[in-house]
């Protein structure tokens, strides 16, 4: 039997993502791609994969058939179990036939990536294998009973390994933004209010946008603009004054003023926040944003370090998640 990955269980919002659908925003086509690019790159590089399964808070269970698969996991601090054995939240595994890999929401984080080494036998749609559920482009969201065939399968590691990827560490540091592009639609004190407020991720948040709950932000010049292009992390203020941070599945254009835009080095941290979690923003200038971007991408480019599972990673350790959190934080 040819190698494949069976989806035994999948919560809502489990999709296939590659780097996204480029070049067609001019025709109304959404980029899509991973919510957390840093975690996606960690998983796909470690496994040698061309795409990944993006798992949301509802979790997923997968199983290999036809071969032992090379599987990497990276993302938020999810609870990862290989046949019941706790694994670190970022790991590289041999998934033997019949073994169950279970991913559940853990201590923190909203998205986790499962990358299978090799190449999925999935034809791209408009140049990408990314699911964009709203427009129906790419594979349908994954559900129990689905099977992902592998056109090529990479060699698995001999035993499970931990992946040390310090950029995956959660942190409560403010999310950095560049003010604008429509700063002139807001009085300076409204921009101050936006930057000084404590915000909470709203329940109605998804791959398209995160709703931010906090003080209403008032417009100086009305809430309609002639639609223009929208970047990942743009924070638009619609008529009700409740900010929306536009994420991977955003429309390519929008008609509300955008007060600020999350910088590239921090968008993954925003993406990993869950509904109900708090955050604040801090304004930076272009130079600081680019310096942070350089540091972030250099870390990702260097790749995750493979390490043997520590002594603490045993089935009897009920403190696995905490210890793993400690390991990650020690490297922060």
């Amino acid at each position, binding site marked *: 039997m040819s190698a494949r990955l069976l989806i035994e269980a999948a919560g809502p919002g489990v999709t296939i993502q590659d780097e996204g659908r480029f070049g067609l925003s001019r025709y109304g086509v959404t980029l899509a791609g991973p919510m957390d690019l840093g975690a996606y790159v960690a998983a796909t590089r470690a496994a040698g994969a061309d795409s990944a399964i993006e798992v949301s808070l509802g979790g997923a269970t997968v199983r290999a058939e036809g071969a032992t698969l090379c599987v990497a996991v990276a993302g938020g601090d999810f609870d990862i179990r290989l046949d019941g054995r706790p694994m670190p939240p970022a790991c590289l595994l041999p998934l033997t036939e019949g073994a169950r890999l279970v991913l559940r929401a853990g201590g923190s984080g909203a998205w986790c990536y499962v990358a299978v080494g090799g190449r999925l036998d999935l034809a791209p749609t*408009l140049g990408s294998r990314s699911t964009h559920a*709203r427009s129906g482009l790419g594979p349908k969201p994954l559900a129990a009973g689905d099977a992902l065939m592998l056109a090529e399968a990479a060699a698995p590691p001999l035993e499970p390994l931990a992946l040390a990827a310090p950029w995956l560490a959660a942190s409560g540091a403010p999310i950095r933004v560049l003010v604008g*592009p429509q700063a002139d639609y807001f009085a300076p004190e409204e921009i101050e209010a936006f930057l000084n407020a404590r915000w909470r991720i709203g329940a109605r948040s998804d791959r398209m946008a995160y709703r931010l709950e906090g003080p209403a932000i008032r417009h100086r010049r009305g809430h309609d603009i002639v*639609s223009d*292009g929208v*970047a990942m992390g*743009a924070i638009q203020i619609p008529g009700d004054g409740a900010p929306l941070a536009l994420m991977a599945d955003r429309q390519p254009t929008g008609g509300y003023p955008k007060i600020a835009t999350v910088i590239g080095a921090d968008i993954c941290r925003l993406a990993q926040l869950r509904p109900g979690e708090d955050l604040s923003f801090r304004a930076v200038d272009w130079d600081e944003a*680019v310096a942070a*971007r350089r540091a972030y991408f250099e870390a990702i480019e260097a790749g995750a370090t493979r390490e043997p599972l520590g002594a603490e990673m045993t089935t009897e350790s009920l403190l696995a998640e905490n210890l793993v959190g400690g390991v990650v934080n020690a490297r922060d």
Partner: protein
Amino acid sequence: MDDETPRFLDCGEAALSVEFGDSVDPAVNARVLALDERLRAAPPAGLRETTPTYRALFMRYEPLEISRAALVAAIEGLIAPLDMDARALQPAARWTIPCCYDPEFAEDIGEAAALLGQTAQSLAQLHAGADYRAYMYGFAPGWCYLGGLPQALAIPRRATPRGPTPQGGTLIGGALSLIAASPMPTGWYVVGRTPERMFALDRDPPFLVAPGDAVRFEPIDAKTFLTLDARALAGETVARRETLF
């Protein structure tokens, strides 16, 4: 001719909006499209993708490959010689798109006509009698926004969105018309329906109308709609394209 220099607005550190104006205006849009064409003909290193909109050119770039200052300088070098003479404002092509205004396919034409103090017939005549400009795509793949709606058909959008549009729904909302390429809830009014596929995955190219093209609607009856719809489903392009220059 408007020779005002554009505004360069940062959209984070890796995207820039070059804004030529703040209105829906053919001359402003022509400048957006002219810059887009030049950038696409010779893209600066680090430029990832451009998205033309009504009045601004949005661009994603990699600031680790090109600085903002270098990108702005490259754009300014392209804008300076933007010869926006009368010809550059003219659309390169005109599409004639069949459109059925029969209430069977134009689900909201009666409601919109009543709100506008028109009859369904006069609304259809006004809509089909106008010359449109395809300003941009947005919202969803193949959703094409058209300027040139007659003033008499300007209509406030619904406070609460209606159910999903039919594929090919021809819509009006605000001072614009729009062809809806796929079923989506919308606050606009469906006043017609085209059998043409504005977006077809299996067709090359998947999208027909280019931003900046001229568009006219040709009224067809329900029987013709069904005939053309079957032909469009089989992959035929039932809209007609004329090259203007």
